[in-house]
């Protein structure tokens, strides 16, 4: 088991190993319900709640859960929290619950959550598991809001319901539709990978012996 510091456990999920943008997990809700910032936030927070609750319980009871039934037990725990989240959302924000439709119940099968239980919470103490869940959960919310922000501004001309461009703007409806989800995710991945590659190239140049970079540039 690789040793990590608490800071690494927390920050890893937020950006460097962001569940959606880097690990490409949980893409189904990231594509399906991110047509507005409000829906993205609600989905992100519901998933954050399920992930944190499940990680806490899985980590707490990890010594008592036999290996043979661990996955079923994890799913049972996750499903319980999802049902709580589903009923809670319907009671607190009924309009958002209606907009998310079946996707709240589908948090159960979000592989990001199960993967955190299997890969982390089932083997680590409670504190570390919670840090990991917080980090991953926040990373998920950030990724969803990045998707929702672009799609709502372009597809509807608003951000969180407030008009951005005024009444003369003709919304690019495709961004509110399913294809817009794929386009937005594609653009974000393109941008992030381009930056990552540029950073890696620069680091390589820095590591060259003195004079090589200048010689290359001259040639």
């Amino acid at each position, binding site marked *: 088991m690789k040793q990590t510091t608490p800071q690494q456990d927390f920050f890893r999920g937020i950006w460097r190993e962001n569940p959606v943008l880097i690990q490409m997990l949980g893409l189904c809700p990231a594509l399906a319900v991110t047509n507005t910032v409000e829906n993205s936030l609600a989905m992100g927070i519901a998933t954050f709640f399920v992930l944190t609750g499940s990680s806490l319980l899985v980590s707490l009871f990890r010594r008592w859960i036999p290996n043979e039934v661990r996955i079923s037990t994890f799913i049972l725990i996750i499903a*319980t929290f999802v049902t709580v989240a589903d009923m*809670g959302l319907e009671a607190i924000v009924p309009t958002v619950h209606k907009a998310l439709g079946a996707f709240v119940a589908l948090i159960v099968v979000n592989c990001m959550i199960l993967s955190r239980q299997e890969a982390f919470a089932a083997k680590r103490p409670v504190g570390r598991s919670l840090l990991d869940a917080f980090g991953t959960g926040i990373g998920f919310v950030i990724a969803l809001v990045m998707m929702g922000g672009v799609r709502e501004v372009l597809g509807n001309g608003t951000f969180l319901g407030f008009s951005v461009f005024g009444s003369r703007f003709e919304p690019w409806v495709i961004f*509110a539709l399913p294809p817009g989800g794929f386009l937005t995710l594609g653009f974000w991945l393109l941008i992030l990978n381009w930056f990552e590659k540029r950073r890696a190239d620069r680091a390589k140049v820095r590591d060259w012996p003195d004079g090589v970079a200048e010689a290359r540039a001259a040639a």
Partner: protein
Amino acid sequence: MTGGGLPVIERKEVPAWRLVATLGTAGGLAGFLLVFVFGWTQPIIQAYKAEQLRLAVQEVLKAPDRYDTLYVFDGALTSTLPEGQDPTTVEQIYLGYRDTGDEIGFAMAADRSGFQDKIRIIFGYDRAEASVLGMKVLESKETPGLGDKIEKDSSWVAQFDGAVVPLVGVKPRQATGDVHEIDFITGATISSKTIITIINETLERMGPMIDAYAATRVAAEGTR
């Protein structure tokens, strides 16, 4: 195994009862927690739904002074259900009155498959004029920007106010201004047609019951 084979990992066998006990306990605790959450959220959810329905009835009956709930039971409308019949399992329609006591019309909810998913609407019906009083979409998942105009385009929704049944859908360019006509939404013909069909079909089914109910009411008032 001889001569440097892979080490045999001895795994301790977990007895079956422990597996069952683990899952059983987890399931039991989960159920216990859900009972509490259900008990807390259900009244709030029910109250919200009732309020939404009340607002919808207010809207499609053009702000009635009060309204009665009628039940569709045994092929007829009745204001009281027999003992032991759960009112939530019976189809309900609503009869609105003005403050003078005159009836405004009946509000009824119905659904049908639209372009993407089920469209559920509620509409008001004026029996005397055979016309629609108003229409409101309760549930739909139609295409944003096209089909969702059935909810969001207020000028389209306003066409239903006063339209005489049976409704006929027409392309906007072929509209003649007839009282039966409803313009289709360009690019969302199926969604618009679905709503027209829901209203026509529901009235075909409910119309006789509504007439029969009104007749018995008139008879009852006559004998009073």
